């Protein structure tokens, strides 16, 4: 779980990600001006977070590194609780809280 990258690698990531993110934000305000985005591109952009984040998180939920890659009831339940509360309340912090309580509660009960 611990980062093994060198300091140089980490700083490269921070600086390049920082510059790249800035250029994305500046794009239309600055360089691209009033150019119209093609409709299909606007559509794709709208779904970046909702596609990238689940793709990132799904394997972490199914095969947590902490349990050697074996599915873990406490973590699966915590994930379910987080999503359920998030969908119902639309409140990010409440969802995190629900997931955290479920995780630590079950880890305590099951240990």
């Amino acid at each position, binding site marked *: *779980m611990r980062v093994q990258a060198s300091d140089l690698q*980490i700083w490269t990531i921070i600086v390049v*990600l920082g510059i790249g993110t800035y250029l994305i934000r*500046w794009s239309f305000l600055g360089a691209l001006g009033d150019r119209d985005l093609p409709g299909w591109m*606007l559509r794709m952009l709208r779904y970046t977070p909702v*596609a990238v984040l689940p793709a990132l998180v799904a394997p972490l939920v199914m095969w947590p590194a902490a349990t050697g890659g074996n599915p873990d009831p406490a973590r699966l339940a915590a994930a379910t609780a987080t999503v359920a509360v998030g969908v119902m309340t*639309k409140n990010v912090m409440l969802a995190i809280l629900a997931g955290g309580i479920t995780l630590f509660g079950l880890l305590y009960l099951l240990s």
Partner: protein
Amino acid sequence: MGRPCLALRVVQARCREPLQDESSMSPSPAPRPSARQAPADEATERALARSPRAAFRHGIVQSLPFLVVIIPFAILFGVVATEAGLDIAQVMGFSILVLAGASQFTAVQLLSDNAPTIIVILSGLAVNLRMAMYSASLLPWLRDASGTQKAWVAYTLIDQSYALSIQHYERHPRLSVTQRLAYFAGTALVLCLPWMIATWVGATVGQAIPDGIALDFAMPITFLAMIAPMLRTTAHLAACFVAIVAALALAGLPSGLGLLIAAPLGMATGALVEARMERRGA
């Protein structure tokens, strides 16, 4: 008479959306400012009468509720990044130079998985692509701002400052550029500075937390909590579902590579479903 009423209702619905949905990361893209005048009401008169300083204060006040989300979130990032093994300078480097929560968490997660540098960067950028949409939708309102002013707006253009500002601009279309910039500056100050400070607090706290507490799952839970409120249309659900299935199917690939394939598949699915729904509605 049916038509103007309908149009008005659409505008109102759009204006309300970011507030109802304040935790969401992807407010809908805004339309261009239209020639149509907003109904002259008291709120508009007040907004038009504001000095730049008052508009700045107004932006500050309206941003304050978002701190309930931003501060704990930034603390969490500081804790998690420190626990993953980054030093304080690196943690702060993320929050000051990148200044985008979801991509910061993404980068740290992939770093923990020992993904190659290029994949960490590409994934982080992919998460932030939505901001090009924000940039495009703010341009018509800020076209007359100076280059330096636009550069600062770009630096502090985050989900919440965008959502608040675009809502304010659409609600009061006749604001001057100075009033618009002052309002944006107010939101940017209240939203971005605490992000950095709270990150530092989290990083300091993180150093004091003993290893062995199940913090490995803090990041997945955070991501899930961010995703859940976004699932508000069939298209969002479809994008999410396809991304998950693809990511699980491709989990055997070297770390991070499955993500770079699964995410575009999910995005394309969302776009296709949206196009289909629109055609059916039309």
